[in-house]
């Protein structure tokens, strides 16, 4: 019952854009004292993250359609054992 969208790490300029186009405003908002954030700020953070997810999903779909080889996520290593129970 695994999810079909798991385990793929696309080689994506769009994803990089999601990280690098908005990092100042998004990172600034996220690192701001939460007590200073307004409702609009919170909505803005959610919208930034939603856009990033849509870009990633679109890249995923595109990669799936074209059959372009994708990087896969890492396999479990012994030194990640703590990771299993987190």
């Amino acid at each position, binding site marked *: *019952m*695994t*999810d079909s*969208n*798991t*385990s*793929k*790490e*696309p080689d*994506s300029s769009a*994803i*990089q854009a*999601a*990280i690098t186009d908005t990092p100042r405003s998004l*990172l600034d908002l*996220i*690192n*701001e*004292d*939460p*007590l200073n*954030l307004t*409702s609009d700020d*919170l*909505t803005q*953070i*959610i919208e930034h*993250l*939603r856009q*990033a*997810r849509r870009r*990633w999903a679109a890249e995923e779909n595109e990669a799936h359609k074209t059959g372009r080889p994708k990087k*896969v*996520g*890492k*396999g*479990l290593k*012994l*030194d*990640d*054992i*703590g*990771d*299993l*129970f*987190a």
Partner: protein
Amino acid sequence: MSKFAPTPEYLSQVTAHNGAFSREVPGLQLVWDSTSIGELKQCPQKYYQTMVLGYTTSKQNFHLTFGIYYHSALEHYDKAIAAGTPHEDALVSTLAYTLELSGDRDEAGHFRPWESEDKLKNRFNLIRSVIWYIDYHHENNSMLPAVVLANGKAAVELSFKFSPEITSELSGQPYFLSGHLDKLAYFGDSVVLTDRKSTKSTLNSQYFSNYSPDNQMSLYAIAARVVFNQEIRDIIIDAVQVAVNFSSFGRGPVNRTPTILNQWLEDLEILLAQNETYARNRHWPKNDKSCFNCPFKPVCSHDPAIAESIRQSRFAKKTWDPTISRET
């Protein structure tokens, strides 16, 4: 008796503030959770140093911290939804909660965001994972709503404690099993137990196979049946893969037949009897085939005469008490 064996007085002293330990038999643990059972199964000496003496590595465990924040954030969302809060409002509320949760304040009240040493399990990816999880499952109508208990509360982060009907031969006292279930949820017409996990690994069948067999999942399957009297069809591992540029989600079932669970309890009874031998002798032996990546390797690889001084110099004290409930 080994000349390095701790005295009964010392064992009583180091466990005095831990409600899981017998007051009659020094060093004998009576209330067990999956973490302490797991430590004992892995290595009795490691169990002794972590659970009995209460030493822990002072290095930040970013896996644990990320997992606690992730659980707590999604628990907040589940509770809001169960209380009738609309999705979008619950999402905003969960974000505000997660931002505050994943940091602390200095004495002057200035906010200090959690700083993780890990490039994946860090604060930014935590917040992204929480928002993406909620949005993804909302869009796909796959949220697995929490069961609402008779008291009107969502069945999330449920602390349990029950007796497996095993009695200590040393003290005559009953043993107890304790822990915290993530969530009882509706899955179609069935009730399932879900357990959220965060990982850097690819979510494939190999990943999910790590939970069968698994100490924690077997204990949780027993607890769901015994304590919450629920006909649990499955345990569902509700996992997030945290990568540099994305968080993705996958679920996998963990099946436990009654026979498997009975055998797990039989194994546990033998393990607890072995631990009574260790407590009686005040000696928890090393499993020296289990030292890879063990934080206590520097202690065990030196002469026992200097073990305590190494522990004091390299480790912090932190009591792990399975009797403490998380319910509010």
